């Protein structure tokens, strides 16, 4: 796999200084958010440790001797979370999941494939569903189970499907899913 190509702004020092003007700060965070998502996807990073990530090449540019401050990274994670592209992995906010696509975006992909396959209204066993999605869209091969599960929960929240667990009680992971019934309409 070729090395990740950093964009031009990654080499500009102001990129690493939290900008005090709100409009400029908003643009700065948007640029960082896109960059972190792209980098994590390229490097297949699904979960980051905040402190360690600050020393990664994306946050620590040794060429221009600039390093992103922790406060800025936390603001970026918060921004990603609002867009559905990140989620704190613990209450202390020391680690975070980074989603290349948000659960909502994965959900759209899932419904499209299910619809194309004529499986609306059917109950699809979980392993068959996962295999089907990987075959129809290569992107699902790299989809973490955690994000896949979150995608299904997102669809369930929107009343697009119903997750059936292997046992009674709340389903908390893919392993506990027996099948998914995709609703018509």
């Amino acid at each position, binding site marked *: 796999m070729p090395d990740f190509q950093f964009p031009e702004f990654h080499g500009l*020092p102001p990129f690493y*200084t939290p*900008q005090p003007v709100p409009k*400029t700060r908003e*643009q700065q965070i948007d640029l960082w958010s896109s960059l972190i998502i792209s980098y994590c996807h390229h490097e297949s990073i699904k979960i980051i440790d905040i402190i360690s990530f600050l020393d990664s090449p994306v946050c620590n540019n040794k060429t221009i001797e600039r390093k992103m401050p922790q406060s800025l990274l936390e603001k970026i994670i918060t921004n990603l979370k609002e867009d559905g592209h990140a989620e704190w992995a613990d209450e202390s906010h020391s680690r975070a999941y980074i989603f290349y696509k948000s659960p909502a975006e994965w959900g759209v992909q899932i419904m499209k494939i299910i619809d194309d396959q004529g499986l609306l209204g059917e109950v699809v066993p979980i392993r068959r569903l996962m295999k089907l999605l990987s075959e129809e869209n290569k992107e699902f091969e790299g989809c973490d189970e955690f994000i896949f599960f979150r995608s299904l929960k997102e669809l369930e929240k929107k009343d697009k499907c119903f997750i059936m667990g292997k046992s009674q009680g709340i389903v908390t992971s893919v392993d506990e899913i027996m099948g998914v019934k995709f609703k018509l309409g």
Partner: protein
Amino acid sequence: MESKYFLPAILNGGGIPEFGKESQLADLSCSSEVTNGGTSFKVRVFFSDHNIYLVFPDSSAVKLPLKHILSINDEKQKLFTRQIIVRYPGEDFYFMGLKKKESASIYDKIFDICFKREVKPWQKAEREARKGTIDKGLFRMIEDSREGVRELVKKTLEQAGDLDLLVENAKQIKYVLDSARKKIADKAKESGEGEEDEDLIKANAFVQEIGLVNVTTKAQLADSDRFYTALGHEIFSTLNSYIRSNGGCVDAAVCYGILNKARGVMIVSPKDFILGCEKMKALGLGLELATIKTEIKDRNIRVLQVAGGFEKLCFENLQKLFDQKSGKYPRVKVSDVAKDLKISGQLALYILEKAEKSLILCRDVSPAGLVFYKNFFGDFTDGAK
């Protein structure tokens, strides 16, 4: 008690010490007029090492401690050989005329006793003048006083700040200059318009030079409104092009210095400058005095700026500054702006932050300091690059 000099009984009472034979108490009973508040009395004068005693016809006496004397002026008068004006704090003064032939030596004796500690340089000059036939003019008096001030300041600095000494002698100088000012005014009245002697001209120039009073301008435009109107126009004509060529906004203190430098010896006070600027704004001439609030507490800046905001002009000047820099992403420091626009660092920072808030610039903070770049964030967000 017998003594070399006559001692009225009253001097022996009331806490006044007795004097022995060796006392320096002198009887100046021939001299004898004391004027205070316009009323004249015949007195007998006695003095000791520490005090002058004035004994009035009704035998009441006044003790004048020598250490409190602010000044002794020597002026020739018609009726007296010598005249002593003794000034004390609180504006009271006593006027003693000496008639006797030996009055000169007695006067010197009084003088020496009064200033036993040290004779000031200007006092030496005065004494020399008294001894000779030189008529000490007004300007000479001021000149000697000024020389005395210089020596005093030098000595004060050498003594690591004997402010008490400075203050004590400053009173002397102030008295002389107050007298000079009064004499200038009196002489101007006497001589009429256009007639001024050389000494008066020099004295006038000196008084103006040290900023005591702006005699000519305020005297010519006695109406203060006319004065400030004229001053407002003068401020505008002197500073307009300078301010516009330096970012549209310049520290008020710098403007004040430029204005007074242009005026030469006829300087204006800071208060007059501010009032003149306010008049200038009221006249709608195009410049105004403004206060810029900074983020640093209690560190606001007063500036003279192009009326109606100077941002546009500032930003144009900033653009020129960036254009002069090489590289795809030039940057400027606060000091670059201050140097280029000839303004203070604080004002330069204010202008840069103003441009930053207007989305023209963005900042970079590093251990090397604060620098500003052109704001590129919008370009990348829009995908233009």
